């Protein structure tokens, strides 16, 4: 034992012996291993992808609203003539093109946009700061995670430039269509569908490495005194997100590899016998595969994935609300247990996406039950956030405005999900616009609002300046209104029977409307004019993001400077660092003395008592709440 002890001592600190020289530009900004720089890289890259996904949606909305008109100049200016000749028919969006946009819109928004922004950007930047760690447990692995994500994104985008175009079989990429689409391309590695799979494998690897990093950091690198129940809720949410990514992604990776084999090695994992295509006739395949297997493997990830999207946003909102109501988060303990139960349950609900695949009553009852059960922790979370507002001294800062909007918007999204949980109701609503309305309410005015709130909230810590309030309001109010204009009618259209993925917005049914026995034609026709309203909303929503981008990039230079390291007078550890935090984050090793939301304590002069402030001693100096340490360097 003693031999080991001799060797142990001092070896953790041996790094100090190394000479720290100033890193060059490339090492500081491009191949950085600092979690803060990586977080910013994730954030900016994710925003670019969100913008691209948004653009695809704008084109899709044109096709839905005006299927017979050529795409107008203000939308098609970025495409070359050659591209338009290949993909547009006299300037009109074709079904093939619409499918391509639809599949890539979903893929880009989910895998390249929201997850990297929520988990990669916010998670990376804030988590080590909030637990009092100098960095992530594995900084080099963190860097690799980012670059794998970047590479995956590049591969996905490159597929747009292929002759075959990008993937066009839905963001879910079901076989056998996805196994066959672009099958006529001789070199399969130049086919968009194949590149989608390769990009996905890269993205999944990035997420896996990231989640290993996060969980290890949260378990092992908490500061002294930071017990589990003193963790800010943000960190709990990131921990569960990490586990969801860790355990749910690999089956999709296996499905992706198998589908890749189907395309490249001509196997038949997901291709049944007797497949017949127009171009090939009876397919030259062995058959014997199961398309249903792909669906199960996909949705095994697919459902935890939506909680991966959600939890970072709830994490941000859960930090912003206490800071801006000056009272503790209501029901912290129940929220913690809820998120743990949510994480566990999310693994056993997936087939509610597959009610129409011919499952028997035994198993669809199971999934229906667990799906309804999982609404309970979700409701606990959102209700706790709502009750947290009660009796608070609310400061309507821009982050708070976004966070307050999150609650009802996510509420609508969640509640509209409840009918979908029941397999009987889902028979009518499956693959209709109701589903689209539901999940967009959750993700767009829900999750995205929560993430915007996070941007406005932590911007002062990252840059030392506030974002402009005026531009913030200009960003918020039109966004809120437009989001509702776009997505609320979808719920109505869905109930009327509007199907998903109709590239002409149901236009084909207008001809049949006169025949009143065609129920679908009659109901679709009643709601078809909403298409134009929704598309206008979408294009206006695009305009209302402009104030945000201006705000983001100019406030960095001309925004109002912060007056202290803790401008919001918050209580969590990230506000104990210098602004912006340097390498190693904290000047001295922080210690935690209390819970994360000690606001408005009766025994305290100030209306907040940060986690890192030493308890009052009978004698000696006290630390003022908005100082970082008694003797700052």
């Amino acid at each position: 034992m003693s031999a080991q002890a001799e060797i142990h001592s001092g070896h953790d600190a041996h790094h100090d012996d190394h000479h720290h020289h100033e890193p060059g530009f490339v090492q500081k900004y491009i191949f950085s291993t600092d979690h803060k720089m990586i977080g910013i890289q994730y954030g900016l890259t994710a925003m670019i992808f969100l913008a691209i996904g948004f653009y695809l949606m704008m084109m899709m909305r044109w096709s839905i609203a005006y299927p017979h008109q050529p795409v107008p100049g203000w939308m098609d200016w970025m495409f070359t003539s050659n591209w338009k000749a290949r993909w547009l028919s006299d300037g009109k969006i074709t079904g093939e093109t619409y499918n391509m946009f639809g599949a890539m819109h979903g893929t880009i928004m989910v895998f390249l946009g929201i997850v990297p922004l929520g988990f990669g950007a916010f998670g990376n930047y804030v988590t080590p700061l909030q637990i009092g760690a100098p960095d992530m447990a594995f900084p080099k692995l963190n860097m690799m995670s980012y670059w794998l994500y970047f590479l995956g994104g590049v591969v996905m985008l490159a597929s747009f430039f292929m002759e075959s175009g990008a993937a066009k079989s839905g963001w879910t990429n079901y076989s056998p269509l996805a196994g066959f689409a672009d099958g006529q391309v001789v070199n399969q590695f130049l086919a968009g569908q194949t590149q989608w799979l390769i990009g996905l494998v890269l993205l999944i690897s990035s997420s896996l490495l990231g989640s290993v990093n996060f969980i290890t950091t949260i378990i092992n690198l908490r500061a002294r005194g930071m017990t589990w129940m003193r963790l800010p809720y943000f960190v709990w949410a990131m921990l569960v997100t990490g586990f969801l990514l860790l355990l749910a992604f690999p089956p999709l990776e296996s499905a992706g590899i198998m589908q890749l084999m189907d395309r490249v090695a001509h196997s038949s994992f997901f291709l049944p016998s007797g497949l017949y295509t127009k171009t090939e006739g009876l397919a030259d395949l062995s058959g014997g595969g199961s398309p249903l297997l792909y669906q199960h493997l996909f949705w095994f990830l697919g459902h935890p994935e939506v909680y991966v999207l959600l939890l970072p946003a709830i994490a941000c909102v859960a930090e912003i609300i206490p800071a801006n109501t000056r009272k503790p988060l209501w029901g912290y303990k129940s929220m913690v247990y809820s998120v743990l139960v949510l994480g566990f349950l999310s693994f056993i609900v997936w087939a509610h996406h597959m009610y129409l695949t011919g499952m028997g009553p035994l198993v669809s009852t199971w999934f229906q039950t667990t799906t309804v059960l999982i609404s309970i922790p979700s409701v606990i979370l959102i209700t706790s956030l709502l009750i947290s507002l009660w009796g608070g001294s609310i400061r309507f800062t821009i982050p708070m405005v976004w966070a307050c909007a999150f609650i009802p918007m996510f509420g609508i999204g969640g509640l509209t999900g409840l009918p979908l949980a029941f397999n009987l109701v889902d028979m009518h609503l499956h693959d209709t616009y109701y589903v689209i309305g539901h999940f967009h309410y959750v993700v767009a005015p829900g999750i995205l609002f929560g993430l915007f709130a996070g941007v406005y909230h932590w911007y002062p810590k990252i840059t030392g300046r506030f974002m402009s309030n005026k531009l913030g309001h200009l960003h918020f109010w039109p966004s809120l209104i437009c989001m509702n204009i776009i997505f609320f009618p979808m719920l109505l259209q869905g109930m009327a029977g509007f199907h998903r993925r109709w590239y002409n917005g149901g236009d084909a049914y207008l001809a049949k409307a006169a025949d009143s026995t065609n129920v679908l034609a009659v109901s679709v026709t009643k709601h078809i004019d909403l298409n134009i309203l929704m598309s206008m909303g979408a294009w206006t929503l695009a305009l209302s993001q402009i104030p945000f981008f201006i705000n983001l990039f100019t406030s960095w230079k001309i925004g109002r400077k912060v007056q202290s390291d803790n401008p919001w007078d918050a209580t969590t550890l990230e506000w104990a660092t210098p602004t912006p935090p340097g390498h190693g984050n904290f000047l001295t090793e922080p210690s935690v003395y209390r819970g994360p939301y000690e606001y408005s304590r009766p025994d305290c002069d100030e209306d907040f008592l940060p986690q890192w402030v030493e308890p009052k001693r009978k004698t000696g100096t006290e630390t003022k709440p908005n100082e970082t340490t008694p003797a700052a360097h």
Partner: protein
Amino acid sequence: MEIPYIVTPRKDTGLYNAKIAIWLFLASEVMLFGGFFSAYVFLRLGADYPWPERALPVLPGLINTFVLILSSVTVVFAWAALKMRQWRRFQVYMSITLVCAVIFMILKGMEYNVKFHHQAVRLKDFTVLEGHLGFEEENGTRVKDHNGHDIEENKIYVKASDLTFSTVRYHNAWVKDIIAQAEHEKSKITLSKDIKVITEPGKPAELIAKKGDALTPKLLSQIAKIHLKARAHNSDLKIAALKEEWKKAKKANPSASDVELSPNVNIDMDALAPLLEDEISAVTFNVVPAAKLQFNPRDIAEGATQSKLRDDTVINGELEPSPMVFHYVDAIDFQNLVMKAREKGIDPERAIENSWLIKNSPFAKEAWQWHLGEVAKLEQRLKDKYGVDKNNQPKRVPNDKERYRLGWKDFIEKNKVELSGFDKFKEEFLGPNYEKRGNATFMTFSLPREQVLHASKFTPAWNTYYALYFTITGLHGLHVIGGAIVLGYYLFCGRKMYLSNPEWLANRVEVGGLFWHFVDLVWIFVFPILYLM
């Protein structure tokens, strides 16, 4: 501040960082391989063809299992040596581990190689033939193709008289190959008519290429450029025209909806026609004289007088007889045919008697008759050994595979040839020794293309079992390579770290060793599931 707990464990969790990380990573790997093993179960339970049981030679898999188990022990001994600060011992044990990894991959490589050269075909009546295709020979010497390679006797032959290429989709490598083939056949591929293109409206048409010009990749790419330019130009014109029409229509009827207006909003093609450029979307070449071109079956959709390649090249010409020629058939499997027959309620033996193969191959017919005798002997032996139950039914009967599949060992049993012990041992790894056993044991057979339902080497394309086998063992093999690289790094580059911080190196080797054990764990399940079941 530096990152803590890289070497020393944290007090309350009792773990150092890398250990948590590796267990998390292994948890995700459990899910990954869990996905694959789940797929295995589904594809097996839902298979609509008889699942190949014991299709793989067991010996390489068995040896690989021993090799991996040995490497598992040595890697843990290597870690123990490091903990006890015995550098030499660590080197020895780690080297053995790496050698085991190399042996594993070599054996795996040999297994894969044998399969990639072994051919299988499913006939239209679901008989399955397995064996080795021959190479074209003339008077005992191999005939080479236009590239100087051997010609495997599984090609589709078309006596091409003309070729039409799609200017956008043609595959350059295939065009070059066709040109080389034609040259080899002493034919010329020439443009069938002049290509005149109006490159600028108003100006007379320009001669791009003359009738009789030879086919070259350069010519095609030149035409492709013209096509893309013209296509883009025409598209721009049409888009602008359509936008104009819509503007006019909306101005005329401001209150009407799109749907009402759209049937009447059309581009005036007559007005536009003089402005359009010639898009040459396809270009035809004559093959003079008609040449016998060969194509891989996967690349061509053949027809009696017209065939089409996957890059949309249309070949006009007679389809020549294109049989699949087996120089050695080493298995005849009727299990799939029997399965189909049972579904229809037909007696299996009768279905086999009426199969195309039995009717058209005397060798196969004789072998089948012999096999029936062997099965009867086996039935008797089992009845004698295990007896009958109370309904006077034998307790044990030959299973389907024994009844309906003639494997290579059966053919050898039928036509015993003297081979050395070492040669017989090699057969357990590399399959039967065709040359020494000859065509008396393994028949040659020319299978007409019309009888082929699906053909493939023993690759993932053959059936879902092989797809799973290659995917699972391939992924596992990649993990072996990855783990070996990491462990090799510690072996070859670890001395510096050992001298400065041996505990850190010991921890890293422990973490690497955990990964290695996981790889062994997966193989412990892979071996029985894929090799023995």
